[in-house]
């Protein structure tokens, strides 16, 4: 018997955390997490048990990145100021946050996704399953992504 509720309770916080890191908006993160779990509930009977977590995070990271791309396409200066103001209400280091997200946005898609999945605590096998790459190449890809991220963020810093 597969307990969907237990699965939800086990992975929701991590999923939400990853989506918040991607989007910087709690409402959007909750919506996309719900959408990912809905899709998972629709297809979970056809997913192998050992690949369920990877499948869920793959769907979530794809949805989140699609939202990011859509937002980037429609973003203008005023919306950026609004986001900046929203972040400013929560933490003092708002500029640093925006720079981190902008640095991640400038990375290649696969590297950015890999970093988000890595930050959410997935294993190499799960990351490989989520991105559709070999497990043996994850370490190399992840190392490149980390260095590219640091290099991209460095000049801004």
């Amino acid at each position: 018997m597969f307990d969907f509720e237990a699965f939800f309770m086990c992975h929701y916080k991590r999923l939400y955390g990853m989506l918040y890191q991607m989007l910087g908006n709690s409402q959007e993160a909750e919506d996309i997490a719900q959408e990912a779990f809905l899709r998972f509930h629709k297809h979970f009977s056809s997913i192998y048990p050992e690949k369920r977590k990877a499948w869920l995070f793959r769907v979530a990271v794809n949805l989140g990145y699609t939202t990011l791309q859509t937002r980037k396409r429609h973003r203008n200066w005023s919306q950026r100021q609004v986001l900046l103001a929203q972040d400013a209400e929560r933490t003092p280091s708002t500029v640093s946050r925006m720079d981190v997200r902008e640095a991640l946005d400038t990375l290649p898609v696969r590297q950015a996704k890999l970093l988000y999945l890595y930050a959410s605590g997935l294993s190499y096998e799960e990351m490989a399953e989520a991105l559709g790459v070999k497990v043996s190449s994850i370490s190399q890809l992840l190392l490149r992504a980390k260095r590219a991220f640091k290099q991209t963020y460095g000049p801004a810093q």
Partner: protein
Amino acid sequence: MSHSLHTTESTTDVTTDENTSGQPSRESKMNTRNEQLHAYLDQECSLQGLQNVGTDHSCELEELRSLNQWVQTKFASISAPHEPNAYTAFQQLEARLPSRSSLHEQTSHIPSLFSGWFKWMHWSLATVAVALCIIWFIPQNQEHPSLLLTPQKTHVEPRTQPTKRPLFTAKGFPIRMLHAHRHFGSPTLAFTPAQHTRSGVQLYPGDLVQFSYHLEEPLHLMIVSLNNRGEVFPFVPFRGTESIYVKSGKGTLPRNISLKLDQYIGPERFFIIASKEYFRYKELQETLLTQWKRQDKDLIHWPEHTSKWSIVQSILIYKRPKYSSPFKVEPSPKRTVSPNNPLRMQPTPR
């Protein structure tokens, strides 16, 4: 700085370590030294896997450790300030799910290809079921009427030839005989609505009869009856001895009155005879009796033209003793005219 470090050490030390099953392990597939160290820091590589990278790796480890720490710090800076309430989120999700029972559905580990096949199989089964319903039920309930009547059509009567009508009759409107049955048992004189009398109809003593006409040109007319006893009786004119002259137009005969049938039981044929010239009842009576005797006193089969006069219509009726007339029937004269009580004739369709 980090980019140069990666490029300088990416082509060193290709390890070929294999595990006990003969398959190369994940550590052995990691080609570079930095990858293995990186995997080790991420707790994805064991200490045994690190033995092949040599002992002098403290510098690289320190650099990778600092890189990991830097990445974790940056991601921690953009992490959510508050943890979400998973229970509330699950309640919201539960409201959007199709059904509660499906949450605990048993997994069958069926590949997606087969699950898609099962979905299509459901649709195909539903289609086959609908087709079977159509095949089994519709022919039984909606059989064509002609198919139902086919076994009953054992005898098909030949199509009757149209009768030759005299030229002097009204255009397309023959003289019609009407009758009305009397309601037996009623304290008052009550009759059914008038009906068109067709050949072979059953009438009863006490019923009323009347004739309607529509003529385009005037003619001489007489209506008589011949029963199975060989008795001829003139209805129009009532007890008359010669034909009456009827002008063109519509009307009823007798005018404004109806005739009550007598107590005679058996077949009786009415003759509506017309001529452009005046004729007498005696001649007509003799002609009809001669013809009746010639055909062995058969009233049922009567030829259309038996005399020099034109028989517009010949109607055979059967009188049945359904009830006895409540009125006193005088033995003589044979027919009586009803009291001055005209029938409320209804126009019959043509």
